């Protein structure tokens, strides 16, 4: 039972061997699953232990190092030394979420796109109310404003593009403030849409001089578009033009011919098809299947001041995500998030995005059930990839401590804890390898990955 053992005992092996962390192996866990709950012991001490273990694991990923450290300073000395750096007390307070809510009236900002589906649907479906929260969803005009309203504390929590909390925490494009990705909102669900006049220019090599729109500098859209054209031999900084355009303006600009295409969020790809101005060139799923897009984020300060509220909010959003993952719920979800109060879009457009049965603008009906999905787990490897791309295109200068930033901003521990509460399966690892356009990314070797690209901004 590693997680509940004293992590300051040099002879204990840390690291989850089974899903709940209570057992030595998954087999033991299953054998015991009908048995008694750990709550029968002193819950608070155990809670504290879990946190201390998590911190020790994070500080000393290798057991041998931890043992040597403990043997050298003694276990009480170690606790004192580490407590001076890590606020165990605050962390423990955070973990006790069954307590009363510190703040019930919350303001949450969102951009009217299908990426925000879990955040939005929790309102009409009553998931916030069920957690005792009175949430006001504020439709916001653009990503810069989303950032400013979070920095101003006008919004308590917000829909973000997943690279934004990294950028804000690093102080890129704004004053630095510790911001977190609590959950990923959606995976996949974006597309490259081109103007109908480019129907015969399906090879990116023919795109020299094209003007593209992306929603924000610090967006997956920007990084994926750059990646995509660079893989086809175009330098995104010199061969094409990339403009930041709020999503609602993308279709209008495409119609006016100001841009040749965009890598944008849905429903605007589908809306361009519906309005017969564009066609879907490629779904972002075909660039990187399972890529994160938007995130649900809160500031460090909010979590510290309102741990119980944060936990309740977390549960509400996770409940939504769990429901949104089920394909059979998608038509209903399209129905509840389309009215003027939320997306303000025709239901049929939103439904095509969520169900994956859509018109592509070229006269075909496609059926791609995983066009959009809502996996909430904030893989830290995703954060590392984002940071490599930020460095690749010159948004970050100098050396980057990829893991340290990723682990500070992407809250996997909270995700695991709350997903377990709702009986959702959370992966035991925080890093995973994945493929982007067929090229493997190893989160353990970000610098080597970065060096492997021929097209990049000179450092």
């Amino acid at each position: 039972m590693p997680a509940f053992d004293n992590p300051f005992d040099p002879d204990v092996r840390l690291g989850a061997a089974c899903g709940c962390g209570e057992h030595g192996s998954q087999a033991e866990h299953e054998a015991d699953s009908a048995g008694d709950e750990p709550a029968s012991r002193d819950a608070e001490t155990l809670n504290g232990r879990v946190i201390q273990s998590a911190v020790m694991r994070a500080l000393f990923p290798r057991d041998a190092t931890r043992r040597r450290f403990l043997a050298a300073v003694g276990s009480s000395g170690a606790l004192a030394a580490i407590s001076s750096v890590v606020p165990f007390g605050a962390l423990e307070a955070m973990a006790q979420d069954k307590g009363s809510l510190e703040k019930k009236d919350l303001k949450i900002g969102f951009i009217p796109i299908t990426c925000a589906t879990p955040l939005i649907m929790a309102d009409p479906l009553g998931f916030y109310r069920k957690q005792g929260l009175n949430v006001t969803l504020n439709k916001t005009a653009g990503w810069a404003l989303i950032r400013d309203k979070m920095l101003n504390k006008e919004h308590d929590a917000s829909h973000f593009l997943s690279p934004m909390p990294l950028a804000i925490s690093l102080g890129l494009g704004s004053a630095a403030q510790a911001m977190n990705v609590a959950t990923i909102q959606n995976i996949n669900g974006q597309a490259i849409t081109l103007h109908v006049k480019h129907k015969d220019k399906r090879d990116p090599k023919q795109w020299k001089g094209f003007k593209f729109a992306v929603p924000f500098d610090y967006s997956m859209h920007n990084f994926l578009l750059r990646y995509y054209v660079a893989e086809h031999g175009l330098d995104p900084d010199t061969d094409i033009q990339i403009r930041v355009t709020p999503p609602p303006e993308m279709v209008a600009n495409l119609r006016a011919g100001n841009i040749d295409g965009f890598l944008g969020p849905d429903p605007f790809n589908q809306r361009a098809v519906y309005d017969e101005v564009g066609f879907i060139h490629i779904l972002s799923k075909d660039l990187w299947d399972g890529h994160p897009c938007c995130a649900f984020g809160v500031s460090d300060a909010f979590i510290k001041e309102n741990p119980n509220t944060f936990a309740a909010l977390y549960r509400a959003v996770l409940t939504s995500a769990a429901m949104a993952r089920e394909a059979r719920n998608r038509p209903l979800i399209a129905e509840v998030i389309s009215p003027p109060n939320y997306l303000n879009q025709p239901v049929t457009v939103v439904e095509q995005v969520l169900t994956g049965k859509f018109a592509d603008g070229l006269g075909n009906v496609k059926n791609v059930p995983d066009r959009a999905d809502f996996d909430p787990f904030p893989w830290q490897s995703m954060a590392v990839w984002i940071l490599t791309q930020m460095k690749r295109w010159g948004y970050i200068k100098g050396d980057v401590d990829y893991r340290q930033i990723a682990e500070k901003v992407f809250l996997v521990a909270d995700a695991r804890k709350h997903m377990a509460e709702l009986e959702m399966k959370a992966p035991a690892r925080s890093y995973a390898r994945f493929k982007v356009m067929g090229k493997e990314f190893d989160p353990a070797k970000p610098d080597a990955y970065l060096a492997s690209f021929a097209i990049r901004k000179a450092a």
Partner: protein
Amino acid sequence: MSSRDFWRAAALSLVFLAVLLGVWHLATLPRQQASAANDEYAKLMGKGAKKTEGLPTPAQIGETAWKHLADPFYDRGSNDKGIGIQLAYSLARVGLGYALAILFAVPLGFLIGMSPLMHRALDPFIQVLKPISPLAWMPIALYTIKDSSVSGVFVIFICSVWPMLINTAHGVASVRRDWLNVARTLEVKPLRRAFLVILPAAAPTILTGMRISMGIAWLVIVAAEMLVGGTGIGYFVWNEWNNLNLANVIFAILTIGVVGMALDLAIGRLQKLVTYVD
């Protein structure tokens, strides 16, 4: 203007309106669409369903307007409120920013108008600050004030302050020398002179400044609300643009025009009250 002229002008206005609506109607008549090969594809593209293509016809605008005006005060959540409520938000912001601008600009204008020294000292600042587009202040306002609705009010304040300030200063400076000399010979105290001689004399010019300011403020509030979002008629336009619903956008544009005209007429009335014949 004789009453005959009035009726002739009114008739001509109606003719213009009819021509405008006629051209609009003809230009936006729905075109026959080539039927798609595949029924399922057509359904996904919204064919056959009630889908507006291109600019809406005048009849569609009429229908939209009726729908909004029939129920102007509905409230279906934080992002979906009736047109009446949105207008009220915009008017409140304009009113607040405008009132602050009056409180600031009129006394300062008096000071500048009465003292040539102050005039010369402050002139460079005014000349530099005046031509700045009020929306350019928005990022700084958001950053320093840290509240988007107060920032909106600030932008209204900053855009309405200059015409009032300059006109007040000009009005005060160009009060006839004779009147001031008469006041001096009668040994009128400075405060009394300001309120009983200068203010009435400068009032028409001040009101002109206020009228220009109101026009600008109403122009700017729409842009500011499109930028900041949340509530107001500008937000309404933005939200409907988001949905590419041009009928609603055109309806909102017409509403903005009518309200702007009403505001201008109101101040015009006020201006008539204080005008005098030399």
